[in-house]
């Protein structure tokens, strides 16, 4: 397998910046009170009020899952890069001292 550890760390950094952008969006942390939103009176109004609230919550949840998946991918890339560093270092000589994981 061909792995360029420096490039992987660079890509992990890019994924990390995407997460930061998402976390920084104020809507992601918004707490929605389901009883607080109201489209208007009547059965259909009540239903759409609830649907509107739930859609906003689902959009927030999708963003949180994306942040989580991004974090998993980022750690996977960093871990793989570090592991390859260790393998290469072992092949070259004694194991290096200190943490193997590249600093962000």
């Amino acid at each position, binding site marked *: 397998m061909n792995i360029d550890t420096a490039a992987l760390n660079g890509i992990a950094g890019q994924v990390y910046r995407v997460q930061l952008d998402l976390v920084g969006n104020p809507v992601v942390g918004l707490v929605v009170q389901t009883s607080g939103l109201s489209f*208007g009176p009547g059965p259909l109004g*009540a239903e759409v009020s609830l649907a509107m609230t739930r859609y906003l919550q689902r959009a927030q949840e999708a963003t949180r899952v994306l942040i989580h*998946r991004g974090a998993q991918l980022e750690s996977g890339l960093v871990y793989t890069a570090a592991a390859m560093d260790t393998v290469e270092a072992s092949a070259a000589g004694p194991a290096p001292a200190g943490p193997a994981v590249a600093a962000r």
Partner: protein
Amino acid sequence: MSEPPDAHLVQVAARLGIDLTTPWQRLSGLRPDEVSNVARCLGKLGPTLRAAGGNLAAPVGALRQAWSAPEPVSYLSALSAAASSAGEQVTAAAEQLTASVATVQQLKQSAAQAMRSAAVAVSSVSPAGPSGVLGYDQQALRDRERLICTGLAERLAGLVAELDALLSRLNTVLAGDPGTALPPPSAAVGARADPVSAVERRSAANTAKLNADLADPATQPFATLVKKNLADAAAGNTPVQLLGYDARAFDGQGRVAYSVGDLATADQVVMLTPGVSSSPANTAAFTAMAKRLIAENAVTAPGTSTAVIVNTGYDIPLSGFPGARDPGRSGVGRLLDDASDIAAAPNDDIARAYGPQAAADANGYLMLAKNSALTSGVGHSYGSTLTSQSAKQGAKYDTVVFLGSPGVGRGIDSASAYRSGTDRTFVIDFDGDIVTRGVTDLASDFWGALKDGAKEPEHSWGADPAGAAFGAQRVNTAPTKDERGPLGTASVKNHSMDKYTSGDALAQLSLITTGRSSRVRRRPGK
């Protein structure tokens, strides 16, 4: 909040048998500002997600060069595509809502304009004040009034039809889930699978308690039965999670709450609370009801999932089972226990006392669900009294449903006491149910008079939620098999929880618990 309509105009219309108030309330009560706020939020989130998709796509080429395995590139590409797709969906929803704001404002203004014009026209024909003005042709005057009011009613009906069409379109847009395309975590890129959910951890802890109780002679009978119930519920690979368990609660009556369906991932969560004589050690019937509702919801709302929490976690009157309640006691001591249990049934004392704890229980379970899950508190018979008290004490139910309710507990006289409010609180009461027809109130009042004298003049179970004054949405349905008593009188057979969760009543319950409540058939309150 809707504006009051012109009083004189409404009075004239009412005299002619024309209802202006209902359409006027719907139109004047519209909240374009609320829609605008949601649209603004989504309008900010959509581009952020789209940008994330683009930024994730940027290093795909570099990753292909840096790591020869195909999975990492596929995963990054899928993540990027899902982010872009989510962003597009959210942006589209924001645009639809933004466009609807203008329409909603227009509908509201048109209604107000039509109402003002008609009010002016009517007051010029028949000014407010004493009627029967000399010199007027009364018939011609009535004809003019009718013409104005009919014209206005038709105009308002047309606007309401436009509103309904708009709401239906929005409902379709808002049914989408922007997160659908997001890929699961991939071990191929070194990521671990999602950690065990908080629900699973809680369930594992309770199961460990249950297993420990199997070795203790004092709790072994209860634990054995509960274990069998859970195993039966899990048949057919159904996820079952033990959310609450205590064999020693309530003098050995025990308490159990478990989810049928995965609470962590469900789109709809229903807390189902049965009533008097339901035993935490014998819940097979409730599991069957839960499974029926889950299956019905899958048809009503395709592509969504439901978890039903079977809640036998309160001090249910008359719920002891042989050998469970104070198993060491017998004779007079046992009889006294039973008498105290019987005394608890014909009033709301337990429900009122346990309300705060019931709310805490409910919120403890619901916080394990997805943030976007639609939550419903559904109680049958005495379970509805408890559900009412817990809802009043802050249980986070989006909707509340009372099935065959004897009353909502003293101290609550309106559905506005709950977070679900009058619009999302529903009552299903069969006409042939002895409990909802007030027959049991007489027995309860008699018992209350014996116990408390005339101290508490209200019904001992509190207000009837099917009453018009309570303000809840009363569902129009009937049991599949209506089993009346002699001469067609109300019967206890029509009170069964099984009937309330079968046939058309189940279909109505499904519409409510999946957020499709506008399709629920309604009837006026008593």
